[in-house]
């Protein structure tokens, strides 16, 4: 459902992504593993259109390389960037609803998707009316996941979702991802992480990014044969 052909991206004159060629199938859960600075975030940003890149990116067989970035979420792509806080001017629920409003979804569809988000993250219902500026960093990550769920009907990309989460919250977040996987078997998930152990047993495919190059890998510790 997502294919990259000869994708190169650089920031300024520094090349970040080199000659990426890979295809992700629908319904896959892909872990994108790499150290800080390896190019994980740039890869997601390139798919979203925020980084200038050469080559071709295909979504459902159609090239989206030249597509205006704000139109891309409308294809069914939910994206939760790292370190992007909630909008403090709005309540938690208003934050979750914003993507649906930006996409001008109708009321019924918006409510359906909000229910989907609350099914995955029921604890957000209790904080729906709190101001986006008052939730903790960890809760903010939960809300950001819910926000990505609103438009992410085909592909959900989460950038380092476990970064900075307290262990209990990280566990809860992983649980929410499993609920999502159990309730929606067709959506494609792409999760970046610098610590492979967090996604072990959940991801069914692992891509390793190293100095801007991507290759197939494994989440198992080196030396095991699982």
């Amino acid at each position: 459902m997502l294919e990259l052909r000869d994708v190169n991206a650089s920031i300024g004159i520094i090349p970040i992504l080199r000659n990426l060629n890979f295809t992700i199938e629908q319904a896959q859960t892909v872990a994108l593993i790499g150290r800080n600075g390896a190019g994980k975030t740039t890869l997601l940003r390139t798919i979203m259109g925020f980084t200038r890149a050469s080559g071709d990116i295909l979504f459902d067989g159609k090239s989206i390389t030249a597509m205006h970035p704000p139109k891309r979420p409308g294809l069914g792509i939910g994206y939760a960037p790292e370190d992007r806080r909630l909008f403090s001017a709005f309540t938690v629920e208003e934050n979750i609803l914003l993507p649906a409003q930006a996409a001008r979804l109708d009321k019924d569809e918006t409510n359906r998707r909000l229910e989907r988000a609350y099914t995955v993250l029921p604890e957000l219902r209790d904080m729906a009316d709190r101001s986006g500026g008052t939730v903790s960093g960890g809760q903010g990550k939960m809300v950001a996941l819910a926000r990505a769920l609103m438009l992410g009907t085909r592909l959900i990309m989460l950038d380092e979702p476990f970064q900075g989460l307290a262990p209990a919250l990280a566990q809860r977040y992983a649980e929410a991802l499993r609920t999502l996987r159990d309730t929606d078997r067709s959506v494609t998930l792409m999760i970046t992480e610098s610590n492979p152990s967090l996604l072990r047993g959940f991801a069914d495919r692992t891509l390793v990014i190293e100095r801007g190059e991507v290759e197939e890998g494994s989440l198992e510790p080196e030396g095991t044969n699982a």
Partner: protein
Amino acid sequence: MNFAIFLLALFDGIAYAALVFIVALGLTLIFGVMRILNVAHGSLYAIGAYTSISLTGYALSLGFAPVLAFPLMIVSAVLVGILIGAPLEKFLLRRIYDKSEVLQLLMTFAVFMILEDVQRLVWGTRPYFDSSALQLLGNVTVFGVTYTAYQMILLPLVAIALLLGMRFFLRHTVTGKLITATTEDREAAQSIGVDADKVFLFTFVIGAILAGLGGALASPTTSILPGMGADMIVLSFAVVATAGLGQIEGAALTALMIGLGRSFAVYLYPEISVLVPYLIMVLVLLVRPEGLFGTSGARKI
């Protein structure tokens, strides 16, 4: 200072604050969303005034009733926003959002200079005056002091309505929410599908309409002549900076402070009246460099 003079200074200050606030609201909205201090905002104010007085004069010469002056003010403001504001954002400012602030300031200052000359080319240098809208609403007498209803009632009402309307728009309408989200975090907004280009264009046009509306509303109360745009941009900048850039409610309060400070100085110490707005600004910024209501770092509108 006797009571009558006090009331006069009070009414002068409120009427003046209302006008400055309307212009400053556009300036601070544009700054809040696109982080650009638009010096050409002053020209849009002046052109709004010229357009309004020309349209009104033309309508009167055709024999239409003077009451037409009011809708023509709105028409003038919208014309300024769409015919000047929209192309300015789309073809010029859009290219410099990621450039340094100095360059942005120089660029909008250049636009300001060009538009000043355009005004001289189109309307010449002689002053225009037409107070038919002012006279139409008559006078009000309060405690023995007679004042025009236009300045004492209409201008403050419009300013308050715009303040409340803007608040409601930004917090409770879909378009407004998308603007607010873009203001807070442009990339986070884009990653949920907000078209920042459209938000910027729309915001700039709204800001330009507010500048034009300020000029149109000012037109019956003053002589319209070259240089009025420069006076207004400096003053509305003082209001916006004192409040904290991007602070809408704060701008309303500082407009009142600066308007009243200026009008009381006119009656009490006329020789320093021109200085007073800037004295207030300097004093506030010495104590709170981020402005009375500004928060350093976080951006808010």
